[in-house]
């Protein structure tokens, strides 16, 4: 896969990661274009989530993790000592597997990041909350209940509010770690449609265990196995005509 530099929002080279002495990523080279959805697939322990979490320095919170390699995000080095991780996570937002709204109102949940950044102007906040909730396709369902607790929402709604919270800080890159695996098919479908609506405006990287989800919504698919990137290509090539036998076996469900 040859990516032209100007088109990429993120380029990673020779990414290695150790849990203590154990090397969990063996030198990943992977670039991401400015727009569109890249799916990371692979079995548990393949390193796909580990890699995803390295992209906005989630591993900083864990002891005993060492990360090396180049992470060029829009020309800045993600792991530079001068990089402010709070700032970084505004630009590289993350949505997790379990919907994790804070135990306060829907409005406060979405405005949280902006308030943290010092924005106090109510008009600005109102506008951002509405825009983000619209982008995450949950506005119509919650607009009359903005001051009710986010915990009272259904799982699928909570997940879209979590997404709105991330979108409110205007990130350039969205990381999604199995965002629908805790949801039923209808809620999953709503999230997928939301991501499809966002894909012309955002770069998104989604870790998913659902092969059919990867094939339905992603533009590119990267297959991880045992800490290596085995193959990355346009999703239709990965699902129709992958180049590597390992990929072929995995996407067709032959795990024998």
């Amino acid at each position: 896969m040859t990516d032209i530099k100007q088109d990429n929002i993120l380029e990673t080279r020779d990414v290695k990661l150790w849990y203590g002495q154990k090397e969990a990523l063996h030198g990943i080279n992977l670039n991401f274009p400015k727009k569109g959805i890249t799916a990371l697939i692979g079995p548990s322990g393949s390193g796909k989530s580990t890699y995803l979490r390295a992209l906005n320095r989630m591993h900083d919170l864990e002891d005993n993790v060492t990360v090396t390699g180049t992470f060029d995000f829009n020309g800045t080095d993600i792991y530079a000592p001068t990089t402010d991780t709070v700032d970084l996570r505004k630009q590289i937002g993350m949505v997790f597997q379990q919907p994790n709204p804070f135990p306060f109102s829907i409005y406060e949940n979405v405005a949280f990041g902006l308030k943290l950044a010092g924005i106090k102007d109510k008009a600005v906040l109102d506008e951002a909350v509405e825009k983000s909730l619209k982008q995450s396709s949950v506005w119509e369902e919650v607009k009359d209940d903005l001051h009710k607790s986010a915990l009272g929402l259904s799982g699928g709604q909570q997940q879209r509010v979590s997404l709105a919270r991330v979108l409110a800080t205007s990130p350039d890159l969205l990381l999604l770690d199995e965002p629908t695996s805790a949801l039923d098919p209808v809620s999953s479908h709503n999230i997928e449609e939301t991501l499809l609506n966002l894909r012309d405006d955002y770069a998104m990287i989604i870790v998913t265990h659902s092969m059919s989800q990867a094939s339905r919504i992603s533009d590119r698919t990267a297959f991880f196995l045992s800490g290596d990137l085995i193959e990355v290509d346009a999703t239709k090539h990965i699902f129709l005509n992958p180049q590597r036998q390992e990929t072929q076996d995995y996407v067709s469900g032959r795990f024998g």
Partner: protein
Amino acid sequence: MANNIDLKPVSEFITENAPERFILDMNSDKHEIAISTKDLQVYYGDNLALSEGDLSFERYKITSLVGASGSGKSTFLRSLNRMNDSVATVNGNIMYRGVDINTKAIDVYEMRRHIGMVFQRPNPFAKSIYNNITFALTQRGHYKKQELDEIVETSLKQAALWDQVKDELNKSALALSGGQAQRLVIARALALKPDILLLDEPSSALDPISSAQVEDTLLELKNQYTIIIVTHNMQQAARISDYTAFFHMGKVIEYDLTRKIFTRPKVALTNDYISGNFG
């Protein structure tokens, strides 16, 4: 040889008005019924969560229950071995071997030896692999060591886990991978020699490889067990089950052979749900 080519005039199988429900009539002459429900209604408080749940399940087959969250499928499944007793009011009959098991006279614990349940999250006890399997047995009966050894081996073999754990039966079950843990839980249920195995999204917390292992195990088990599985994974239902029941807003909308449900369901709602058209 079945008739693959239909010779009737086309007008006979065009249904301008698709039915609103279709429930397969399990003619018990042709099918051996393992368990069936009649007039089942489940109330959470005043809220009717499930009604019109009249279904019969064929013995030694896998039946999938599919539907959105809140459709009543898990409520239905849990009613079958009285897991809802403490949280809901369950009216109606659940017929098992000619006996209505939804009555006060039934010893629920004894009944659950026949009708076992496996949950979504693998929930092994914080005990050794061996003791996970023998725990329920030793609580309620007296077994010789040799008998227990045999049960452990048989159950683990049936759950397709024996080869992977036979040398470490005394290790903690908590060290197992998700797929192994789920198969251990299945083995634990099998140790009680149940007749019917109920599974509530048994692989939704697992990655595709572990999930495939659980599916293979279920396909092996159906020679000896009647299996009823709630799943959100439509492809899983299509891959492994003989029958599929589609639940929607507390009702069974369509119940038919899986191959029919996935190629030509009779009810429009089923068609939309099965093909992912949730708009």
